[in-house]
Each structure stands twice: as structure tokens, then as C-alpha cells.
């Protein structure tokens, strides 16, 4: 299923991973039980890259949990497409504080004030289109698509 998603960021996990290290978790999962075909195929590509992290950073990045950078008063990328159960992490690189707030006024998800260097994570379990914004600078908008 995950293989069908035209993902900018893709995470093949079938369950939210909390704060555990993603690679360790996936390694344990691989040794314990079979993974969905598409995810396994992706891992086959990404694990060798993980082993030689410094040599192939781009391949590793493609398989890591998705991140959104807040920089120059904008969310980048503005659109992130993920599979259900994926955790997205935002990091503020501006000197100005920002928030990550779902467009329904923060009912679905909302961060506290993120000062310079602070991060916020949220795991998207249900498919859907999630628009979000910065409640301090409400013209800053972006979207997460989960399917």
C-alpha cells in the first residue's frame, strides 16, 4: 500500500513508533515478522544505505521519518504526503517563534510555541487532508495529505 503513495516523504511503518529510533525499530520488526511487500522492498533499498550512512545520505533521507522545516516564515515543504500511521516532525529554524496548528483551530493537533531549534511531532493515523498554519503568523499555511 505504501508503495502506491506518491510520497514526498514516505514512512512504511504500520504502527506509530513513538519516540523510538526508527531504524532500530524497523530492524526489530524485520527480524520478527514479515513486512508488507512494498515496505520490505523499500527497506531492502534503504538498509544498505543506512549501513553506509555517510556515503549515501540522500537515500537515507528518503526513508527517514518526514520532517518539515520552518524557515523564513514558511513551512517547507508546503505539502507532505504520507501513509497512515506516519509521524511528522517540524523544526523551527527561524529566530522568531512559530506554532504548528491544525486549521480547525488546533482541535486535531497543535504545538506549543516553538522557539529557535524547537521541534514538534504528530502521528497521523487517519487518512485525510490536513491543512495547518502558524497561529502566531496565520498567513503561514501548509498541508499534510495522509492516504
Amino acid at each position, binding site marked *: 500500500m505504501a508503495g502506491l503513495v506518491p510520497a514526498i516523504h514516505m514512512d512504511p511503518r504500520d504502527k506509530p513508533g513513538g519516540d523510538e529510533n526508527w531504524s532500530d525499530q524497523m530492524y526489530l520488526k524485520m527480524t520478527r515478522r514479515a513486512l508488507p511487500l512494498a515496505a520490505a522492498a523499500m527497506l531492502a533499498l534503504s538498509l544498505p544505505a543506512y549501513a553506509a550512512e555517510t556515503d549515501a545520505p540522500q537515500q537515507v533521507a528518503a526513508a527517514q521519518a518526514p520532517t518539515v522545516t520552518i524557515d*523564513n516564515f514558511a513551512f517547507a515543504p508546503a505539502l507532505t504526503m504520507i501513509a497512515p500511521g506516519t509521524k511528522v516532525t517540524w523544526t523551527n529554524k*527561524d529566530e522568531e*517563534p512559530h506554532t504548528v496548528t491544525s486549521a480547525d483551530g488546533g482541535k486535531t493537533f497543535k504545538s506549543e510555541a516553538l522557539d529557535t531549534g524547537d521541534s514538534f511531532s504528530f502521528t497521523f493515523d487517519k487518512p485525510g487532508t490536513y491543512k495547518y498554519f502558524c497561529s502566531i503568523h496565520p*498567513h503561514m499555511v501548509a498541508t499534510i495529505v495522509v492516504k
Partner: protein
Amino acid sequence: MDSRRDFMKCLAWAGSGIAWSVVGGVPKALPFGLGGPALAAEGSFTFVQISDSHIGFKADANPDPNSTLQAALDKATALKPAMMVHTGDVTHLSKPEQFDTADQIIKGAKLDVHFVPGEHDVIGDDGKMYFDRFGGKGAAPGGWYSFDQNGVHFVALMNVIGFGPATGGTLGKDQLEWLEKDLKGKSASTPIVVMAHIPLWSIYPQWGWTTADGDQALSYLKPFGSVTVLNGHIHQVVQKVEGKVTFQTAMSTAFPQPAAGAAPNPGPMKVEADKLKTVLGIREIAFAPAAAPKLTDETLA
């Protein structure tokens, strides 16, 4: 003194101690300090506006906003004002310790202070901590309120609590209905002062320097002969006169921001340490009977 050239000069940069005398909707620049003698007249009163103190800010643009707030308060108390207004962003990140510090410093000035929140004061809890400490007396559930001082009607609006993605600030339907009722029945000769954090008029929507439904609020103010709109948010003085309404944003007590469009984003602007106090400041607003209020921006330098 009242030549167009002088006026334009002052309009270009009002950050270094310029008095505005607004007569019949036309602002005239006066040398700084002329406001003094008029204040002694019977029935007149003076109040001070401070804004954007950002307690908790610690980046290069000002590592010590506590002391610059204190400097602003020292200037303010020296003017012996009847009261003071704070037009928002009291804190930087809405943290309890930031509210506590701000509260202590401001209380030290022993002034009667009326606040409106900035978007930095309502992060994460829709302003609960802010309103617990600084909420207006008899405020509506949404936080807006009004009061009278020496015959002047003050309206404190709230345009920073999110309703969702927007171009800038939003007042919302409930507040607009309240405003219309609040002003109804007031004599057109009643001087009105409106306070709101984000500019109620469109300065630079690309950076969110506007209030989406500000025009609706301004339509209720049209019948009045003297309306002064005091805003903060953009950390610099920008003024506009439209009919009988004077709009004026204020300097911050913490750090300056770039002029509209003059930088990639509106983030804090770093200036040389010895220049900082020349771009921070307070505003004195002087009312005298049968005259338009006089607005004087004074830097901390």
C-alpha cells in the same frame, strides 16, 4: 512648520521624537517637547502607550528586554500620565515565568494599566494565562472591553486569537456585534480611542500586517469626530490619517522590525547595540478640551 515637506519628512521616519498634533484630521509635525504646557490645562489628561515588550526574548536583537521595558516605564512614569495602555505582546512565548516577570516589572511603575493581548501572549491556551493576569475589568468572554477616562471612550479590541489560517488579525462576528452595540448611543463628539495589537488597517498583508475584518469595525467608528487607533505588532511607527480617524502603530520596547518589504521576512532586526534605544520607545497621548489628541513618539535613547 506645517509645510508639506516637513510633514513628509516626519512621515518617512517618526522614530526619533516627533510630536503629532492632529487637527481636523490633518497631522502637523511639532518639535518634540511642545506638548508640555498644554497638559496643565484644566480637563486635559495624558496617557502613555507602550507595546511589544516581548519578555522572554533572548536573541541577538535584544538579549535583555527586561531592562528596555524598565527604561520605557521610567520614561512613562516621568510623564506622570493618568494611565497607561499596553498594546500587546507582553511576553514572547506565553510562558508562565514570562508573564510573571512582565507583571512584576510593569507593576513596579505603579500605573493604572489597560492591556490588549498580542499573538505572542495567547499561544497554546487561547490566552488563559494572559487573561488571568491582564484581562480587562468587565471584559466579554472573548477578552474585549471598553472604559471611559476623562470623557474619552476607550475600546480594547482583541484580534489575535486564531480562527484559522488568515491574512492577518481577525476580530470575528461576536466582537464586531459587541463593538456596534458598545458605540451605539454615544455622542458623535465623544473622542474615541481604539486599542488593538495587530494594525486594524492594511499595512502589508504579505507579512500579515492587517486585520481581515478591520474595515467592518472602522465602519462603526465613522460617525465620530475624533477617532485614534493605537496598534502595535510591527515594532515601528507607521501612521495613516483617513477622514477623522488617525491610525498609528507604536515602537516596541524590545526590538525593531524591518520596514514593510525591506527584508525577506518580518523577523527581529538587529541594530548596533548603541543604536538599540534609538529604535525603541513609548508614546504619549495628550487630550485637551475641544482639541484633537496630540501623539508624541519618544525613543528610549
